[in-house]
């Protein structure tokens, strides 16, 4: 292996007078968050070149969705970004509703905003928690894991029935309405669980010298490069680009809330962490406003072509029974066409490109994963830095393999 590449890059002199070493990191490695692999060419501890590889969790979301009905695909979308599954459900339902030209009810929009923001908070908690574990700051992981458990036990499980793979949205509405006492519990948890946990972790990290020295200036990217590589989400905002689909291409009822979008400066790991922390606080703001403004009314649209009819009618009325049967066995009939719908997921722009040829199931669904671009840019973020910096950067860009590999 010639080291021409290495010597050119470092101005002709290797740090240690030896040949560069090729180190294989992953795919089963604690710091690579499951199934990522890097092939790093190292000069001592400095990374000369980095080749990321993935596909170790490729579960064929697209191929599976081609042989299932529209509603059955919702369960596959849960497993995309499995840390915030409700957001994937919402994104998919919105895409199909755009194709069917359905407008969901007001209450449904508010509930979707609520579950999206709760998912955003828990996603950022996992991201920061695991990033800190990789840096050795294990306490933050536990500080963030407790609010997640509270959210699971008191919010997500009573609402959807399960902790993680929720499958809560349906085309035209939701699986069912909010249970009793959920609104009060949500308010409670936001104030007494999420905000104190964020404050605790902030107190531990934001002025901590070790944290600052390990994350400031590490893995930085300029705004121009970030745009060229197609970054979106907190990683893009940390680089200074003020793009947030909730404000720029507002969907659901985000235009009725008053919230800020944090923007970083240098695009390094510290900025990504700060942006995520602030986004969590802003999400709590949105949740409180949404809970205040939550309207009553039905949760599903009143259209039995897409939504299952009321159970009493199904038992007593033959048309409703037939409609119920057709919706489940054949799948709802979505018009032919193609549509691209994007939402601001916790990691960035989660896009669904759906091609339909009419009929009960999709012809093709492509998911545009937000972390794909960030993982692609890992060489740009890490080359020239050290191995330990790779670990810090990888945690901060929040690669979720379910989404990356699909």
């Amino acid at each position, binding site marked *: 292996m010639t080291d021409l590449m290495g010597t050119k890059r470092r101005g002709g002199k290797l740090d240690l007078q030896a040949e560069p070493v090729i180190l294989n990191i992953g*795919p*089963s*490695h*604690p710091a690579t968050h*499951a*199934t990522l692999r890097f092939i790093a060419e190292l000069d001592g501890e400095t990374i000369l070149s980095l080749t990321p590889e993935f*596909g*170790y*969790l*490729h*579960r*064929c979301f697209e*191929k*599976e969705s081609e042989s299932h009905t529209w509603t059955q695909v919702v*369960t*596959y979308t*849960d*497993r995309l970004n*499995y*840390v915030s599954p409700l957001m994937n459900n919402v994104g998919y339902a919105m895409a199909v509703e755009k194709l069917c030209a359905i407008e969901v009810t007001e209450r449904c929009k508010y509930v979707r905003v609520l579950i999206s923001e709760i998912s955003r908070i828990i996603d950022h908690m*996992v991201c920061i928690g695991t990033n800190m574990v990789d840096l050795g700051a294990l306490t933050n992981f*536990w500080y963030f*894991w*407790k609010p*997640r*458990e509270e959210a*699971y*036990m008191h919010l997500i499980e009573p609402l959807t029935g399960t*902790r*993680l*793979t929720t499958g809560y949205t349906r085309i035209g509405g939701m699986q069912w309405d909010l249970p009793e006492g959920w609104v009060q519990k949500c308010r409670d948890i936001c104030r007494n669980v999420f905000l104190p946990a964020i404050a605790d972790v902030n107190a531990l990290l934001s002025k901590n010298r070790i944290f600052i020295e390990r994350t400031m200036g590490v893995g930085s990217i300029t705004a121009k490069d970030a745009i060229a590589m197609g970054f979106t989400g907190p990683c893009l905002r940390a680089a200074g680009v003020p793009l947030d689909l909730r404000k720029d291409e507002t969907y659901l009822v985000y235009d009725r809330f008053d919230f800020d979008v944090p923007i970083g400066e240098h695009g390094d790991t510290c900025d990504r962490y700060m942006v995520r922390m602030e986004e969590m606080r802003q999400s709590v703001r949105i949740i409180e406003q949404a809970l205040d403004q939550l309207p009553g009314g039905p949760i599903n649209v009143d259209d039995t072509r897409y939504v299952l009819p009321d159970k009493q009618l199904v038992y007593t009325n033959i048309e409703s029974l037939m409609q119920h049967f057709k919706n489940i066995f054949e799948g709802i009939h979505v018009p032919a066409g193609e549509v691209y719908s994007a939402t601001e997921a916790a990691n960035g722009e989660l896009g669904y490109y759906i091609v339909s040829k009419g009929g009960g199931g999709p012809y093709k669904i492509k998911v545009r994963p937000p972390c794909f671009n960030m993982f692609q840019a890992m060489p740009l973020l890490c080359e020239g830095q050290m191995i330990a910096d790779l670990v810090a950067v990888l945690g901060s860009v929040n690669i979720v*393999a*379910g989404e990356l590999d699909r």
Partner: protein
Amino acid sequence: MAVGDRPASAPPGGGYALTTLESMIAWGRKYSIYPFTFATACCGIEVMGAFGTHYDLSRFGAEVVRFSPRQADMLLVAGTVNYKMAPVLVRIYEQMLEPKWVVAMGACASSGGFYNNYSVLQGIDKIIPVDVYIPGCPPNPEGIIDAVVAIQKLLETGAPRAAERWPIKI
């Protein structure tokens, strides 16, 4: 290498018979299982929840998670294993020292889950012997605790491990 013809990795001559000394060893072993979490997908998040403060797997002794297969004795496969990942899993299994136990967590590791396609291995028991299967998608952290307790029972009663009747001819 085709899937399914893994050589037997357990020593010949049968089970894990117990005498008084060995029951002492079994007692020590069962309360200090070192898990290697081979977490690939969503089940990995529930594994983290099981080790968390609410479900607390350390009550059962299986707290010390080792990220090196040489230092672990229970391989907890959490998540989907696909054909690209399968050689990695087999290599990790081979690197673990005897005695070792394998727990297949979740529907995907047990049988492929609801992914029956060109990329997903339909259950890790096609390539390595599995002692305990945890059903669920994903299973509750309580399911993981259940599996650890089941492994402890296996240790206690000296029941033969799955590795001893491997490979299973399907």
